[in-house]
């Protein structure tokens, strides 16, 4: 099965995506990840203002059957969380790259973003 991989985004091997705009980065999980999880029913979002380091647990996404941790692809300070997911976590299944974003970070070091995979490299995984 082929999954949607968007050009212009950065990716991790653990199936998170990053969209950098200025110094802010929106983070979510990829189409492949939502397909694997299926039926996302609960998202535990972090608190705005929290500092987070690359590789640390950013939030938790739960399906009926499983609990999956989403890791911070880059370090930074959380400036926004997608509160719509509190009531409608299934948005992630429907729109993983747009309405289903998880967290927005004020990125500490933009160079860190460049170390992530581009769309071509992610597709090859």
């Amino acid at each position, binding site marked *: 099965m082929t999954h949607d991989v968007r050009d212009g985004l950065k990716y991790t091997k653990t199936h998170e995506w990053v969209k950098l705009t200025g110094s802010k980065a929106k983070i979510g999980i990829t189409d492949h990840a939502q397909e694997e999880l*299926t*039926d996302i*029913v*609960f998202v*535990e979002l972090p608190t705005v203002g929290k500092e987070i380091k690359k590789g640390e647990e950013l939030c*938790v996404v*739960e*399906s*009926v*059957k499983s*609990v999956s941790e989403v890791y911070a692809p880059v370090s930074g300070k959380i400036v926004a969380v997608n509160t719509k997911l*509190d009531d409608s976590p*299934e948005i992630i299944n429907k729109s993983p790259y747009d309405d289903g974003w998880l967290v927005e970070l004020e990125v500490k070091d933009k160079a860190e973003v460049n170390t992530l995979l581009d769309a071509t490299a992610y597709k090859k995984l």
Partner: protein
Amino acid sequence: MVLRSPLYKNQVKLSAKFTEFAGFEMPIQYSSIREEHFAVRRKVGLFDVSHMSNVWITGSDAAKLISLTTVEDTSRVENGKSQYTVILRENGTIIDDTIFMHLGEKFMMIPNAGMNQIVTKWLNEQAKNYHLKAKVEDVSHEYVILAIQGPKSKETLQKTTDVNLDSVKFFDCQIVKVAGVECILSHTGYTGELGFELQITPTRKASVVFDALLSAGEEYGIQPIGLGARDTLRLEKAFMLAGNEFEGGRTPLEATLGWTIFWDHEFIGKEALLKQKEQGTYQRMTCLECVEKGIPRHKCEIQKDGIVVGNVTSGTLSPCLNIGIAMGYVAPDKREVGNILDIMVRDKPLKVKVIKPPFVPKDWAQKHEEIATR
């Protein structure tokens, strides 16, 4: 080694996603757990549960052996009836829960997945120890087990069999032909819905039955169902899953399966149960419903005012109720219906309320048609 159901190819064709469970590679889902869950609650679903075990118990003392090794007084189980019971160790803890079918001179027992060798060995040992004329034979690999469940299961199955299903009562079992194939039919299930289970041998004939049931159910919206929805369906009805609810050694009294115990006969583990009953201080299986957002999971601690009072054995999001639900063992003085407890999820307390089982009552889905499958 990973075992596969003889229906593996049929399942691949239906785009199943697979998971390993008790040494078997079985479908976890076909479409989505939620969709499959509602198909069973509202229409009809077909399960392959061939990972479950099949054991024949034969010989003139077959009934005596079952009475000795389970809490059931087998003399009261008539020919043509199925019975749910538990097999105990000497210390009263559950080896396995099972259904056995009284089929004339023989009994067929259905232990859980991966329990075939353990149960067969245990029963044969007891037959020897107590000088009983009974033979216990593991025939799990010779059978495919199908379950057809849901309000339209009867109509669906009726189209494929000559036996009048109106005459088949709950927990009846008999040999019938389904789609021309001889099966053991029992009016049983693990979903809390109207349903039937079929034991089919030889396994190469199972594909015909599987396909015939899927075609017969098409007009009712039948769906193949994976183990994911099987788990949410049983959990909403507070049915036990042996690997979870009996983990670490639990007695039927702790598991609130006291109703299965027939005290007026001798059985292995009876003494231990009598002692435990007298003491009365044991933890008991308790149903907990979340009063805030979150999903309790297997092994989470249960607390009251910061003190551990039990642990969760099964937890999920209830597709019907759209809230977290859990089963777990709780101290006897903390499990009054309505009591508020905390389940520790990722070190944070999640507020839950003790409820009287089941979580989802009979016909709930028919009365709540507005709830979308999503």
